[in-house]
């Protein structure tokens, strides 16, 4: 039997997070700091998905940049079209400069519709993930193969986007976004509104992920991670179990990318390739991949450290980043979230297996 405090712990923590993000942060932080936080929260949203797919499902998702980018481009394409319509132009500014014709490419056209574009920010990444996942998991490609395949896909998408300058903006990406569904992004009040949307989405997705974690499906996912063969012998199809986690994580990354656009005002291939894709799992790894709260806080903390430390000590920051990686992943696979558990374990010598630590850390979420 759980005590009453144990029962209230999760909703209590959730409420605390909501108060911090929606109540205290907007009051305590300047416009600029808040817009930075908005950006970090976008990375945190990706981390929620990473926590699900990697922490719980054991899928090394090293291609989240692909989904982040698809979501971001879907959103940015709509916003660019809306900006163009506002100024009475038929095509976005960059196409006038670099394009070859005055006609909008056919695949841009549907994005003029806000509902379609919004749906695409999530559905497009999920569809791509479903296709890739279906092919890959069915053929039982896993582990290192899956990780390297993900990297190859990220590289391919970013090279392709760069090559299509006339229709995608090339290396520049889509920049200079003025409005967000009719609201001017120049206005600090609207910037705050964007922050609130992002914070709310993060909290909602964390709630959703938490429900997935504790559901039957969540148990199954962990089982697949720890022993795929046994799950198969029990009559489940591990491919489908993994596919769901992968697709949901992709949808979250897509949504994060879409929200990143109004928060930062740019989406570019620089956010998609191999390095940023590894970047998306760094935070989760450091904070604790299997712990939802750990992954989210880790993502925010790493992004924050990146932007504050890299100015003062660019060289030292690179060393620190590398070291953090080595220490967190190498010696503390449950991330900082498992620090308490690990220390407790040290005191009581009945050592459970390494893998166990991860699961326990996860339950603390």
């Amino acid at each position, binding site marked *: 039997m759980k005590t009453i405090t144990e029962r209230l712990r999760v909703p209590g923590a*959730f409420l605390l997070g909501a108060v911090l993000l929606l109540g205290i942060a907007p009051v305590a932080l300047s416009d600029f700091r808040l817009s930075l936080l908005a950006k970090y929260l976008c990375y945190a949203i990706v981390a929620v998905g990473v926590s699900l797919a990697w922490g719980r499902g054991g899928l090394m998702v090293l291609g989240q940049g692909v989904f982040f980018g698809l979501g971001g481009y879907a959103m940015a394409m709509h916003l660019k079209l809306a900006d163009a319509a506002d100024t009475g132009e038929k095509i976005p500014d960059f196409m006038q400069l670099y394009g070859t014709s005055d006609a909008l490419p056919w695949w841009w056209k549907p994005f003029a519709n806000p509902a379609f574009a919004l749906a695409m920010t999530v559905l497009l990444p999920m569809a791509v993930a479903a296709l890739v996942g279906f092919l890959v998991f069915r053929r039982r490609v896993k582990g290192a193969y899956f990780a390297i395949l993900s990297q190859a896909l990220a590289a391919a998408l970013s090279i392709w986007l760069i090559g299509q300058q006339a229709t995608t903006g090339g290396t520049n990406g889509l920049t200079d976004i003025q409005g967000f569904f009719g609201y001017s992004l120049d206005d600090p*009040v609207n910037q705050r509104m964007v922050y609130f949307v992002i914070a709310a989405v993060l909290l909602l997705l964390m709630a959703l992920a938490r429900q997935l974690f504790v559901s039957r499906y969540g148990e199954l996912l962990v089982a697949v991670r720890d022993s795929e063969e046994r799950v198969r012998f029990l009559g489940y199809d591990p491919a489908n179990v993994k596919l769901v986690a992968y697709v949901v994580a992709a949808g979250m990354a897509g949504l994060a990318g879409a929200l990143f656009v109004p928060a930062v005002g*740019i989406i570019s291939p620089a956010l998609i390739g191999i390095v940023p894709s590894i970047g998306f799992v760094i935070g989760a790894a450091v904070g604790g991949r299997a712990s939802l709260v750990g992954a989210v806080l880790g993502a925010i903390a790493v992004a924050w450290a990146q932007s504050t430390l890299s100015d003062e000590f660019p060289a030292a920051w690179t060393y620190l980043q590398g070291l953090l990686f080595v220490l967190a992943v190498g010696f503390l696979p449950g991330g900082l979230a498992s620090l308490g558990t690990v220390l407790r374990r040290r005191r009581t010598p009945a050592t459970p297996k390494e893998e166990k630590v991860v699961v326990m850390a996860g339950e603390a979420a």
Partner: protein
Amino acid sequence: MSGLSISRRGLLYGASALGASAALTACGAKTGSGTSSDAGAKADTSGSTVKVGLLNSLSGTMAISEVTVHNSLLLAVKEINASGGVLGKKLKPISQDGASDWPTFAEKAEALIKDDKVVATFGCWTSASRKAVKPVFERYKSLLFYPVQYEGLEESPYIFYIGATTNQQIVPALDYLKKQGLTRLYLVGSDYVFPRTANKIIKAYAEAKGMKVVGEDYAPLGSTEFSTIVNKVKGAGADAVFNTLNGDSNVAFFKEYKSAGLTAKSLPVLSVSIAEEEVKSIGTQYLEGQLTAWNYYETTPGAANKKFVAAYQAAYGKDKPTSDPMEAAYISLYLWKEMVEKAGSFDVAKVKAASDGITFDAPEGTVTVDGASQHVYKTARIGKVGSDGLIEEVWNSGKPIKPDPYLKGYSWASALS
């Protein structure tokens, strides 16, 4: 199991509260309403020092180039402070690292303007980083001085373009090639905005002036495999190669070029992104005799340049070369100083109004600010890589060329913008 249902209900309440709070959030100005709010980013000029922002990549792939620009910016700040500062105030440089990442550039630009309240910002290298920060400077009505040659087709009211635009680098380079009788060109470039735009201009020029583009190839940024491209170049029957490759790719390209038996004599390459620093890292073994197009070389004659080179090498090392973007960065601070002093104020609107006609005896020769386009009159110079790794000028435009970012003064370019 009961714990589960409680948490589920709790979460549901939380979630609905969230939705409500998001919906209740106050909404600001609509797009196109023209009230782009004061944005409240006033530069701080109250103390005895004013802050200037230096925005360069100190880490990441672009750090190689941008650190040198950063160094020469710091040198200029030091010199200006030693001679009494600007309007009696000393400059305090605030460095922010763009980390070779465009969204980071936008973030850091905002930090400089809003947190540090700088009076002006100097930096950016790639077009992508400039495009990323442009809306930020426009939103907060703050000034950026951009020191690198670029692809033109841009006139932001809040950016001063101190590097060359296309009619001060690409067009004179084409004039030079034409005069040498090298009329069949092969275009090789990295896959990004500058090469693609430059090549569009080259093709328009070629068509109008009886030159011929016999091939055009792009390699992804950072690509180091050029055997196929060099094969194509070799078989195309070109007179010259117009090279807009950037960074690492140049090293691989020229190594491949030489081993395919191509030389500066048999098929000269004119490069627009290879300066003294790059020559050092590629090696004169591969580059000797090849052409470059810039507005400044370390060897450019004149007392102003002697002083600049000596000061730079005294500060950063005897073996450190100076290059065009470094020189442009260096003079950008001096030009800004002149503007502020002419305006008698740090106020952005007044500085902009005072900018037209400001001249400066720069290392590259006399430069003059064109207030209308916020670009600079610059002398174009074609150079040849020597065996000592320095670039010797072989031709110059004689007088500073009026900047024309949209190439409006060139009839053959009418279809471009």
